[in-house]
């Protein structure tokens, strides 16, 4: 699967270079630091006030595990129930197929403009670019997505796509793109976006959404949003298309409640999001509102291959973004540096799932394995474990650079032989001599310089503990 991702020029530079650039961007640093700190605090408070939280997280994880065991059964039930209510179901094996299904609907029904509510599934398949290419104007109606679309960028966070921008930058962007001088006041900017978007909701022929969940035994697509735009996207245009990854299905409404109780708490610290929209097909005879047609696109795009694969647990992901907020790496470099649709620790796993393990040969190492991601994950996905497994695969398949494999091979031999280990210590002691100043190593030549450029290093001790033990015994 090679669908999705960012513009090629972003991928052309190595990950480390993109990360370095992000570290040097003061606006990004300011925006990220404020937003992630706020998200962390809100989430912590939400769960502190919610004693049932831990048990519900276990329950949610168990539901995900059980659902994946019989995914085909639940998907068929979902499809049957959607069709029973007059909806249409489309199956897409690849991202390209999912894209083509939406484009065909646009062509066949003369769609000129599509309003969208926030959807990572549509980002995953670069749907906006495909729509534009086909002469359909996509209009993002989530405020963050609207900002990103105006800036011609990609989301840098799973739930807060414009997290990397300061309000000053947004004011500048709006002023330029909308042709009026606007102050850096979030309320003013939101009101402007609202006014512009109102007109689009009424003009659009199609509404495109993702799906946070889809309930198999009722055929209900569930959208969790905060701005109310999702409701207008699903009810005003004459056609509603929902694009969802097949792992989003849950068996029943009872199961859904478990997820709703932990999703918003994990994402934004809310008990529930402002809007929980339950969609059951097109407008029925006698109903006053709703679309004339409802289409559900069930997209695989590399997912089913992982049901029995090493990335299986990544299929539990609810896309809450909590692991991004707490990740020390994400908090420093933001989402764009990762270079793919899904950033952060879970993004590395999802990228490996969508684009293959080779696509993350550098990203697999973009983690200190601190475990903060797993700790906050509402379904306790063992992200560090899977990152290590990916690294293991890169070594075994000889994707890791030759020099690295050679270096670690040498280290392994050293660690298996106390005599070699002692020899290495002696060699270190001699070679470090010219570089020791005030009892520390401050400037080492390559490769030690990688460390000492920013940090001192203690010298190899004149006598190791092993050597001192004789005196202690």
């Amino acid at each position, binding site marked *: 699967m090679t669908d999705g991702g960012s513009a090629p020029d972003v991928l052309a530079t190595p990950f480390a270079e993109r990360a*370095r650039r992000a570290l040097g961007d003061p606006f990004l640093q300011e925006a990220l630091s404020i937003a992630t700190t706020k998200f962390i605090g809100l989430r912590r408070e939400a769960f502190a006030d919610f004693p049932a939280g831990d048990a519900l997280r276990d329950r949610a994880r168990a539901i995900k595990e059980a659902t994946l065991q019989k995914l085909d059964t639940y998907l068929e039930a979902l499809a049957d129930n959607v069709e029973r209510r007059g909806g249409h179901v489309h199956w897409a094996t690849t991202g390209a197929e999912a894209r083509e299904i939406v484009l065909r609907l646009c062509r066949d029904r003369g769609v000129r403009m599509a309003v969208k509510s926030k959807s990572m599934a549509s980002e995953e398949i670069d749907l906006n670019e495909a729509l534009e290419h086909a002469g359909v104007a996509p209009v993002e109606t989530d405020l963050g997505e609207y900002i990103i679309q105006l800036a011609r960028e990609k989301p840098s966070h799973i739930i807060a796509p414009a997290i990397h921008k300061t309000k000053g930058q947004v004011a500048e962007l709006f002023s330029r793109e909308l042709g009026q001088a606007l102050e850096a006041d979030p309320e003013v900017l939101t009101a402007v976006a609202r006014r512009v978007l109102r007109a689009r909701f009424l003009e659009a022929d199609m509404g495109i959404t993702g799906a946070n969940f889809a309930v198999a035994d009722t055929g209900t697509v569930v959208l969790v949003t905060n701005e109310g735009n999702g409701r207008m996207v699903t009810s005003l245009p004459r056609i509603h298309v929902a694009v969802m990854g097949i792992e989003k299905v849950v068996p029943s409404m009872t199961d859904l409640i478990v997820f709703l109780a932990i999703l918003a708490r994990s994402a934004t610290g809310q008990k529930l999001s402002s809007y929980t929209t339950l969609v059951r097909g097109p407008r029925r005879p006698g109903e006053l509102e709703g679309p004339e047609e409802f289409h559900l696109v069930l997209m695989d795009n590399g997912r089913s291959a992982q049901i029995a694969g090493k990335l299986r647990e990544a299929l539990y992901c609810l896309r809450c973004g909590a692991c991004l907020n707490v990740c020390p*790496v994400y908090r420093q470099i933001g989402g764009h540096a990762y270079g793919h649709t899904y950033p952060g620790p879970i993004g590395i796993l999802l990228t490996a799932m969508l684009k293959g393990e080779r696509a993350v040969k550098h990203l697999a190492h973009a983690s200190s394995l601190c475990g903060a991601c797993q700790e906050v994950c509402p379904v306790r996905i063992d992200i560090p474990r899977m990152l290590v497994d990916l690294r293991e695969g890169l070594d075994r398949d000889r994707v890791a650079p030759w020099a690295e494999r050679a270096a670690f091979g040498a280290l*392994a031999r050293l*660690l298996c032989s106390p005599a070699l280990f002692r020899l290495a210590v002696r060699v270190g002691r001699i070679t470090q001599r010219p570089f020791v100043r005030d009892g520390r190593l401050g400037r080492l030549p390559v490769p030690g310089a990688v460390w000492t450029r*920013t940090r001192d290093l*203690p010298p190899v001790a004149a006598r190791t*503990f092993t050597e*001192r033990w004789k005196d202690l015994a």
Partner: protein
Amino acid sequence: MRASLMITCLADVLFPEVGEAVVVLLRRLGVTVEFPEGQTCCGLPLFNSGFHRAAAGVASRTVEVFRGAEHIVVPSGSCAWMVRKEYASLLEHHGGPAAEARTLAARTFELSQFLTQVLGLREVDSPFRGRVTYHDSCHLLRGLGEARAPRQLLQGVGGVDLVELPGADECCGFGGSFSVRLPDVSTAILERKLARVEATGADCLVACDSGCLMQMGGGLSRRRSRVRPLHLAQVLAGGAP
């Protein structure tokens, strides 16, 4: 009571005084300290970088070295985690002595856990005096689920004034090879940590992992900070250099 010290590669070569402090401390508590010969490293650096077959080779050796030990005490959260949580499955996958690794895991303790769980230590007889703050090492905190023991022990020292570090549970940016694969990101994470450490007004920054101490100590030293990095054992033994 007998305890075998697993010194760990970093403490052996870079921080031998930590090992000495552990010996002084345990002996003061009436423990007979043993030091099995032929120790090198637990294999965690290889494991975390994905070189699992090589890590399994090192793990097999470690199992062998500590075969006769009653308790194994490790002054490092990450190495203790490796032995306790990863050895058995690693060796199972690579045809090593997995059953023996399981019994080794059950006898292996990170230092603060050994002191509180096995020895039941509360009040600590240490001449150390000073204002200290404590950094939670990721593997000790989230890997072994231990936040209390080190703090309890520090508070058990009469001369210690413990101030809580804001964001104590956040990574210091070390992460083994991560610190040299992405040195700029690692350093940015470190800077954030050290700014908070210095804001506490503490004289000493205490941790239970040589990796974190190498990273944070290296940063403190580079910025010529007045804050001294110390291993928990050095505070408890009281003979800090």
